[in-house]
């Protein structure tokens, strides 16, 4: 980076790095994206009818595109409104009642997975700052898989064990039905995220670099 260019934010340091109006817009619209993708083409899968949707794609993409803080806020806002009664959980369900249902673990898992993959994305992007291309894509895919296996599938299985009284092996098998779809969705999410960062370099990439070059 040349010394002459310094973004406005760096010239007048703020005490706290708070979200501006664009961040609020991104948080709100990604929350809407997660909600809309829960409602479009949901197909119940497996013995308990936990529906398969583009939602995990939207959730992972939120983390990959926005980073941990804003992804947590976006998915958190979605959950909050769903719990408050807005019919935006998959299949148009809503309310705290879903926490008693078989998909409770998955819904909580979304929040943690989006945050985790957001955090890992920042790490990967810093790490591969000067090497774009394949390595970055592979590492991001690994980050997405690790986050979704630990949080979405892990908590999903736990949720089915607690709420549907399944033993571990049955819950594990029921959860297995989601893996093929999830691998495809994570590949898709990473390729979309990379395209987004190319189209909007200041979405996350430039932020990271701005922080780095700060004296």
């Amino acid at each position, binding site marked *: *980076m*040349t010394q002459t260019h310094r*973004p406005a*934010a760096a010239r007048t340091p703020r005490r706290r790095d708070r979200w501006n109006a664009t961040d609020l817009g991104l948080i709100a619209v990604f929350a809407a994206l997660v909600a809309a993708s829960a409602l479009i083409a949901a197909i119940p899968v497996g013995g308990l009818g936990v529906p398969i949707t583009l939602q995990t794609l939207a959730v992972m993409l939120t983390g990959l595109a926005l980073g941990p803080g804003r992804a947590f806020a976006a998915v958190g806002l979605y959950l909050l409104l769903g719990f408050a009664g807005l019919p935006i959980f998959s299949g148009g369900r809503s309310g705290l009642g879903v926490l008693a249902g078989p998909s409770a673990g998955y819904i909580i898992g979304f929040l943690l997975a989006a945050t985790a993959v957001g955090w890992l994305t920042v790490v990967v992007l810093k790490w591969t700052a000067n090497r774009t291309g394949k390595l970055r894509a592979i590492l991001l895919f690994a980050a997405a898989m690790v986050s979704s296996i630990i949080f979405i599938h892990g908590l999903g299985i736990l949720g089915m064990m607690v709420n549907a009284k399944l033993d571990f092996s049955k819950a594990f098998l029921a959860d297995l039905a989601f893996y093929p779809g999830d691998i495809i969705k994570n590949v898709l999410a990473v390729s979309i995220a990379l395209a987004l960062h190319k189209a909007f370099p200041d979405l996350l990439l430039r932020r990271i670099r701005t922080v780095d070059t700060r004296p």
Partner: protein
Amino acid sequence: MSIIVLDRVSVRVPVDGRPAPKTLLQELSLDLTERRIGVIGANGSGKSTLLRLLNGLVAPSDGTVRVDGADTVRAVREVRRRVGFVFTDPLSQLVMPTGREDVELSLRRSIRNAPERRAHAESVLERFGLLPLADQSIYELSGGERQLLALAAVLAVNPEVLVLDEPSTLLDLRNRELLRRTLAGLRQQVILSTHDLELALDMDRVLVVDAGKVVFDGEPAAAVARYRALSAAALEHAVPEQPWREQA
């Protein structure tokens, strides 16, 4: 009348994969004091960046922009109270589902009391003749009605300066005429960018922007002539190639 002063302003943005940043505006020094100011120039010439500097949507990389002494970076809140901004596409500007609600949203900061806010919004809509459409979905309004509504929502908070980014681009002939009349009747200082040369000729002063620099500043008629010459010259350079011809 407000006084907007740009002092040696440059705007640069980093480009990924390239060491040197891209310059959008270069060493611009201007005093904007006229009542009606137009900015014309080709797509990508820096018009939009210039307008966005005026209410702090874009911060200068070097130099300062001051509105009546208030710096657009340090006192951005004060600047935005003084300078209203109207975008090309009213749909990206209107945030609420109906006109009434959008005008009320504008007033949320200035009027805390809800019934008072509602009454004031009503009077603003009345002034622009939008009251009959106030409760319709913004998606059911025509393009002209939407642009008028966007204008009303911005003027509701009574700014001193109104900045408009290509306000007539999406309008048909009749609505363009309506916009011209509305703008002519405003007490506010108006600064707008446009491709509509008729609208440019209504102004008191017109800037021609090309490749990040102001290449002409003065009389509207002379500015339009200069812009026409620039466009013709650019086309002259492009003509010998005409890649689409070869494939035909």
